């Protein structure tokens, strides 16, 4: 379970202070499929950084699975990312010149887990890329790369799968495929949070949180959501 309690974030840009988040309260239960929407500058990226333990709030509390992640050292944050968070980025962010299966293994490397090859293969098979293990990122299409990234995000069995504009760099067909994959993972009980500014993506989520100017503008459950279609 994820709980944000009155979270604020203030950035210093030189002498100017920018308040990116004004007191966010948000609870996401296990197994939810949430889209966080908002125009650029709305604070959704800042929120994602905090949810993903890439950054800590200026004030307020962030509880991830009961662990307070709001005042941790760099090292502890890295450990939490390693165990509880799976990232999917807009630009895929695979490590270059490193085969698909090795990319998928990486989180296990940093978690210090041995016997990585088999889980990595299974994860690749799960996203439908069992036959692309040895391919380098530049030998894969955008959709395929994003699926490798999803496999990588899943490998350490995270509490939260965090996708930042996962379809932003993909064509319609590939986007639909990625969304369907995320939906399928959610159906298996995985908590998925998608950050997006595309209405089509948001329409596919079970719950939509809209942000504006560092505040939550609306938070509603969608009864009639569109299932992603190929």
């Amino acid at each position, binding site marked *: 379970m994820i709980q944000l309690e009155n979270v604020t974030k203030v950035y210093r840009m030189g002498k100017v202070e920018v308040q990116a988040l004004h007191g966010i309260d948000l609870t996401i239960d296990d197994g939810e499929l949430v889209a966080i929407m908002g125009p650029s500058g709305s604070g959704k990226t800042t929120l994602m950084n905090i949810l993903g333990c890439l*950054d800590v709030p200026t004030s307020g509390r962030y509880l991830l699975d009961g662990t307070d992640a709001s005042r941790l050292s760099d090292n502890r944050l890295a450990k939490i990312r390693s165990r509880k968070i799976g990232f999917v980025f807009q630009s895929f962010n695979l490590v270059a010149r490193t085969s698909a299966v090795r990319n998928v293994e990486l989180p296990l*490397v940093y978690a210090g887990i041995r016997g990585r090859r088999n889980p990595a293969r299974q994860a690749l098979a799960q996203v439908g890329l069992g036959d692309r293990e040895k391919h380098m990122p530049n030998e894969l299409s955008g959709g395929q790369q994003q699926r490798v990234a999803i496999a990588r995000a899943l490998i350490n069995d995270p509490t939260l799968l965090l996708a930042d504009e996962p379809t932003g760099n993909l064509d319609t067909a590939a986007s639909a495929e990625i969304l369907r994959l995320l939906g399928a993972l959610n159906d298996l009980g995985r908590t998925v949070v998608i950050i997006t500014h595309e209405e089509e993506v948001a329409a596919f989520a079970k719950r939509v949180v809209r942000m504006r100017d560092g505040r939550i503008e609306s938070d509603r459950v969608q009864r009639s959501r569109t299932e992603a279609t190929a």
Partner: protein
Amino acid sequence: MNLREAVRIALRGLRANRLRSVLTMLGIIIGVASVILLVAIGNGVQSSVNEKIQPLANLITIVPSVGNVPGGAPPKDLIDADVAALQDPAMSRDIAAVIPAVSGKALTETDSYRFRTTVIGSTDRWLDLNNGDMSAGSFFDDAQVRSTARVVVLGPSVASYLFGKDPAAALSHTVRINRQTFRVIGVMQSVGEPGDSIAVMPLNTARRYIFGGGDKVNQIIAQATQASAVPAAENDVIRVLSDRHRIKDTANRDFEVQSLRSRLDTFNQILRVLTLFTAAVAAISLFVGAIGVLNIMLVSVTERTREIGIRKAIGATRRAILEQFLIESLVLAGLGGIIGIGLGVGLSVLGSVLAPTLGPTFATFAPAVTIPSVVLSFAISLVIGLVAGGYPANRAARLRPIEALRYQ
């Protein structure tokens, strides 16, 4: 993250920029190779010179010196009785043999040619003690010394000037020295000038026919039992002669004791300093190599900022990133060190193969690679890797993931 994985990641990083990695290593390679090669050459020179001198290193030469102390006793000559005293085995455990020698300049003539030579009169052991060899005929023997035979052994320069290139051509001919006739019974092998322009004959033959009678000797050659016994033998010589010449104060000594051994020690000392100095100059290129590694590691960290961000996002700790880049620079410098060692050893071996073809002077010259120079230069390469990689790696480790991920 275990070490094997870290090394694998580092190697992959280096392979990705093969040319750049090789060029960076080149600085280390050249530095290590030149340190090893120069130390090897220095050692080669030292052992080659020592090898040539070693047979003579246990010789002690005693010559008269002019006593120059005002009011002191008049200096005494070295005489046969001094030689006899030194030959007494009871006087020293460290002296194996003692021979006297008289010498002077004289013309050696045939009917057609004359050659200015150093004439030496000594015993039959002279050739042996001076580590000489015959190229034709034989040296005079003990019987000829006793019978004051009118025989002479010529140095190769004298023989070839007077009788032609073939040393055997001089045998059985006669030469005139100081208007006296001597039969040539042997020609010695070359030892280099001025040792080749000599004529050697029995001690009393030289006294009777050339230098005049008396029991004076110009030189006493003593042979220590071994090179390491030279200092002890020198002390014995000084003790015996000072006693015989009644000298109490070293300043009044009327003889000089010299040995190649002590000169050799001095030579070796100078050479060691020179070798270390040249190696230190070569080590400057290692320093330049270190700057190359530092530079390339900084570039690598900047270039891979985004990769660092990704790795951090998926759970890499600071330490993991630090290790990755440290190991990368250690592998870079260490590999350079290993290749440099190979190159340095290879060039040394090549040098020892090629040196003899450069002429007789280099016949015994062989660069000798020493284990300490190899170990030390490899250790220095690793230290370079550690130091030059430390700063960039630390910078990488401290990158904040959000900013690193945003880096284009």
